[in-house]
């Protein structure tokens, strides 16, 4: 079945009027992306069962005047694209990307957080949309990122972490793996038994996961589990 890009944008992404493919269809408004974008497979992925992401930059200002440079935002874009590739293995798309920010003046001490402050951050703020909240901060002092195992459907729930909180990693690839991993937790996944799996391993059984650049596989069981989440949207 053929479908026009314009009608797809309107029906699946709520994007109308003039738009660029990169910003309108992919949700990458921060300029060039250092990855090969394959439009047909992207369209196929976002039209199936999919989640939406609510990307919240903590202590950002328009014109990249806060804690995030354009390169940082481009790394997040690339990370999202890597995540899309990983989730596509199990037929789960990442459809809409809602970008928003908390201004520097209102970010308080949330540029650098530990696990407890990560919970406070997600309690104090949430994206006004149907995407899983992913907060990007400058530093997470005690982890690569924090999420919630089987995250709550109600983002306004108090006292529990209602989103993932991440710092930008040192490469596009790792940023994507870490993003996919933490959102994976939110979508009900637990640490796994092999390092090549996205959910990594807990090699010394201390509850602390480990990943490396090969941690990208997902099993069909994991895919099914993710698709049971309340954040998964129907095909469009």
């Amino acid at each position, binding site marked *: 079945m053929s479908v026009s890009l314009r009608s797809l944008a309107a029906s699946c992404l709520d994007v109308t009027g003039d738009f660029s493919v990169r910003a309108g269809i992919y949700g990458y408004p921060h300029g060039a992306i250092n990855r090969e974008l394959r439009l047909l497979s992207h369209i196929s992925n976002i039209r199936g069962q999919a989640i939406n992401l609510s990307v919240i930059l903590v202590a950002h200002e328009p014109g990249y005047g806060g804690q995030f440079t354009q390169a940082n935002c481009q790394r997040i874009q690339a990370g999202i694209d890597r995540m899309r590739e990983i989730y596509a293995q199990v037929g789960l798309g990442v459809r809409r990307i809602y970008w928003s920010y908390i201004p520097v*003046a209102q970010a308080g001490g949330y540029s650098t957080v530990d696990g407890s402050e990560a919970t406070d951050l997600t309690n104090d*703020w949430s994206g006004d949309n149907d995407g899983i909240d992913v907060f990007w901060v400058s530093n997470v002092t005690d982890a690569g990122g924090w999420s919630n195992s089987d995250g709550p459907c109600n983002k306004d729930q108090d006292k529990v972490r209602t989103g993932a909180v991440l710092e930008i990693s*040192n490469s596009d690839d790792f940023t994507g*793996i870490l993003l996919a991993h933490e959102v994976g937790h939110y979508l009900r996944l637990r640490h796994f038994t092999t390092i090549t799996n996205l959910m990594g391993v807990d090699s010394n059984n201390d509850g602390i996961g480990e990943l490396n650049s090969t941690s990208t596989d997902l099993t069909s069981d994991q895919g099914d589990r993710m698709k049971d989440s309340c954040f998964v949207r129907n095909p469009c």
Partner: protein
Amino acid sequence: MVQRETAKSALSADLKRVVGADHIVLRKTAVLKKADAARLAALLGQKQSKGPDALIDRKRALAALARSAPLQRDTADILGRLLVDETADPSERLAAASYLGALSTDMAERPLIAALRQARGPFRSRVLKSLAQVGSASAFRLLRDLEPENAAEARQLALATAAIAAREPGLVSPDYGKAFGLEWAEAKAEPLDRKSLAAVHAGLSGPLFSMAPSAKLGLGYTCGKTRFTLLLNDSLDQNDIPKAVMAREWIAASMVTQAGNAAHWTLRWLVLTQPVADGLRMVLLRPNGDAMFEGMAQPGKDGMNFHLRDTGLERIPTQIDGRILRNGLSWTHKVWRGPLRAKKRPLPLAI
């Protein structure tokens, strides 16, 4: 490539696992062996590539070094240099500011104070937090006289000065109430004369769950534009109220209110009491069953003292304290006047 492999092989397995650029241990809580910490300090002291050839993840490396060698001068030097390096990656400077807060005062305080003078925004906030962690009298004097840039910073300054004063003998922090904005408005109920009480009875807009109010004993106070009257159950022995309430369950009293210029009084809360093993359970219920306050009355010298907490159904925190005396009651209603969380959460701004 060969060079990189050589450099990589110079990292021990533990070091690769904890800070290697191609490996992530998700929790940054590892403590390295002494030799690894020394190697890491040496690596962090050098200019490192941040590109695909990077050997280590610098932010994780800073965390690991601060945790593994907090007493080493090298650690403080590396973090301190980063703190004042305006050309450094902002997120690494923030990390340095954070991890200095985990070192000892003698190593961390001076670079933090120096950085505070120029620091703005999130960086300043983090420096303040670390000074709260490790600051001494020198930091206290500086922070005490610092003009906060906004309300959030005022709270951070208050915490920092309070934390330092709590550590350092001889220092006194500002009054906690003022410093942290802890303000309560207090309304103390006064006994009503029979005539006033009769007027309230006459103005009641409806029944009180079959509770006949005492014609002798009632307390009144005003909170905002609302008048409150506590009507005691006439069936309680008003010559020994503590004994009476401990005898069985009661609707011991009803709180009725009169809003603004209204002529009538309406039932706001029923005061239910239930004797239990360790005292008297008290619950204030709305007529629809919502529990608004709860607490215990405990026997004291001349009666029973009670403290009732609100259950959070109303946005503004309140509490009620009082005493049940042999032939009367005291009742003080406290209403929070400090900063409140916004009714609606703030929303991030769309890009």
